[in-house]
């Protein structure tokens, strides 16, 4: 069975796991060899399906099902690993790629074999320049060791993996915008359908999976679906990396089974909030979250795809931002709205105009120049955007403002320009 407690962040227990030699000493690339030499591509997909693995990029879509959707009438197939990691509060893929890069790359290779792609890309946000350089040298080491290239393990399967750097645009994390960007175009989302499984990179069937999703795959192939299902919950199996940030004493990445409670993450792992403060709200999907009121019921809620909506939130990429009693909600909303206004790609009017007007209103509220009806106006602008945006960015942008007006209304009616955060008061 697995040689340690971690499934993903194994570098925390095994020193130098970012060296190919060390990774292989710990069983690395046995799963790829097993898949390529002893399993049919469809069998690999079946195991991943049976494991219940769900996409870790935010939407929680079943990974095996996604691979099975690939159109076998159209060739070639491609795989693109989503290493854009730009959601505020998310910093897990980066740790994987820095600490345990070969397990991720092995996952890319197994996925590529399962869908019979011979070329895969890792699309990294432009800021991950150093990570891309290191991945390039890891890929070279794999080629030199015969783990990439022609005729892998004596089979007739060949594969190449390449990195591609973005250049600073959150929207390129959205899978169709990412494909446009990789094709050398503006990173703007495509109309769907068609979906990438039929019309993806260069118009060919393409799997897009998140880095963390793919990093699970070698372990699943090695130890099987039942082993994987022994972690997490029935509908959300397996481990998850929770990126914990904001008002906590020990921010960082925590690998825990899906279904762990917020209370455990924030207090046991994160050491609670700074002395004298209490938890006021939780954003569990980064800036794209609604604000969950941090009462006992919320704190005792299991963090999985099914349970978080019960307390008015989303699990998303599990970027848990903790908001304590020192933080002003209007200040916070101005931050998130400003983010989306900056990152809106401008392709569709509801999002381009809506984020602009929300930004205008939140700034006025913060500056104390708002009229009393501006809070309702802000709420309405968000309501008018709902369901009308071309991609999820526009829909995400209204989560925090609308939920906070619903749940923390009194803070908007207080005198403006109150303390921002404990730290910023100086």
């Amino acid at each position, binding site marked *: 069975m697995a040689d340690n407690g971690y499934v993903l962040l194994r570098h925390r227990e095994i020193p130098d796991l970012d060296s190919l030699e060390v990774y292989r000493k710990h069983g690395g690339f046995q799963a790829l060899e097993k898949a390529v030499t002893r399993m049919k591509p469809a069998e690999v997909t079946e195991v991943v399906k049976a494991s219940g693995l769900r996409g870790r990029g935010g939407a929680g879509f079943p990974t095996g099902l996604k691979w099975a959707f690939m159109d076998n009438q159209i060739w070639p197939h491609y795989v693109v690993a989503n290493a854009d*990691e*730009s*959601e*505020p*509060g*998310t*910093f897990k*893929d*980066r740790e994987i790629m820095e600490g345990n890069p070969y397990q991720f790359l092995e996952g890319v290779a197994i996925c590529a074999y399962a869908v019979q792609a011979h*070329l895969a890309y890792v699309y990294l*946000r*432009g*800021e*991950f*320049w*150093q990570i891309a*350089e290191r991945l390039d040298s890891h890929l070279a080491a794999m080629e030199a060791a015969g783990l990439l290239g022609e005729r892998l393990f004596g089979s007739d399967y060949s594969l190449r993996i*390449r990195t*591609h*750097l*973005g*250049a*600073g*645009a*959150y929207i390129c994390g959205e899978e169709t915008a990412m494909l446009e*960007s*990789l*094709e*050398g*175009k*503006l*990173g703007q989302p495509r109309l769907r359908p068609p979906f990438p499984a039929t019309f993806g990179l*260069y118009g060919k069937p393409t799997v897009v999976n998140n880095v963390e999703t793919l990093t699970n795959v070698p372990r699943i192939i090695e130890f099987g679906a039942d082993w994987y299902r022994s972690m997490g919950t029935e509908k959300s199996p397996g481990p998850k990396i929770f*990126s*914990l*940030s*904001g*008002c906590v004493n020990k*921010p*960082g*990445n925590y690998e825990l089974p899906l279904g762990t409670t917020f209370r455990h993450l924030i207090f046991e792992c994160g050491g609670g909030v700074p002395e004298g403060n209490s938890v006021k709200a939780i954003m569990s999907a*980064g*800036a794209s979250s609604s604000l969950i009121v941090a009462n006992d019921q919320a704190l005792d809620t299991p963090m999985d795809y099914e349970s978080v909506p019960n307390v008015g939130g989303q699990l998303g990429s599990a*970027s848990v*931002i903790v*908001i304590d009693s020192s*933080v002003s909600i209007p200040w*916070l909303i101005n*931050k*998130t709205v400003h*983010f989306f206004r*900056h*990152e809106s*790609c401008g392709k569709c009017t509801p999002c381009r105009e809506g984020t602009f007007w929300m930004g205008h209103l939140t700034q006025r509220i913060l500056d104390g120049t708002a009229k009393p009806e501006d809070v309702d106006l802000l709420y309405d602008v968000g309501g008018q955007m709902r369901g009308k945006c071309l991609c999820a960015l526009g829909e995400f942008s209204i989560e925090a403002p609308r939920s906070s007006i619903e749940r923390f209304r009194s803070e908007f009616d207080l005198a403006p320009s109150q303390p*921002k*955060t404990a*730290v*910023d008061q*100086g």
Partner: protein
Amino acid sequence: MLERKYLAEKYPQEIQNILDKYPAEQRRSAVMPLLYLAQRDKMYINREDLQEIGDILGITLTEVASLVGFYTLYYDQPKGVYHIQVCTDLPCALRGADRFLAELCDRLGIQPGETTPDGLVTIEPVMCLAACDKAPMFQLQSGAGLTYYENQTVENALSLIEQLRKDASGRRVSARERGRDGNG
């Protein structure tokens, strides 16, 4: 019009390596790495670069230029030789990033978004850089790439800038000694 070959002559191997990453009939995919290459020695991309990249890939100057406008890590104007990009997004701001940026700018006597009078560094606030547990933090962008600096203090940042200043004046001297221009 004579085709310009500045990048082709300066970086023949780099260009070939970039083109080799993509299927032969999909050259356009190489546009982003080529833009980084054009930006390498002067931290911005000029019209001639855009034209040359367009010529290499068989697309128009306008198409190449639109990418420079869309992506934030490309520049079409000369600014500082280095860009210090401080993350002031929500998680970092909850850990003092706004104050860090303000103090750093104060100590340098500039406003966020401005460049130091010697043209060395531009300081800018940016969105989340996936280092939210290590605030205050910033990235240093130069033509040669990007480096993260995490768990920073204003003093750290100032001494980094001091070091960059020394390196830059060292480079100017040695360039003069070799009897030619500095970079770019």
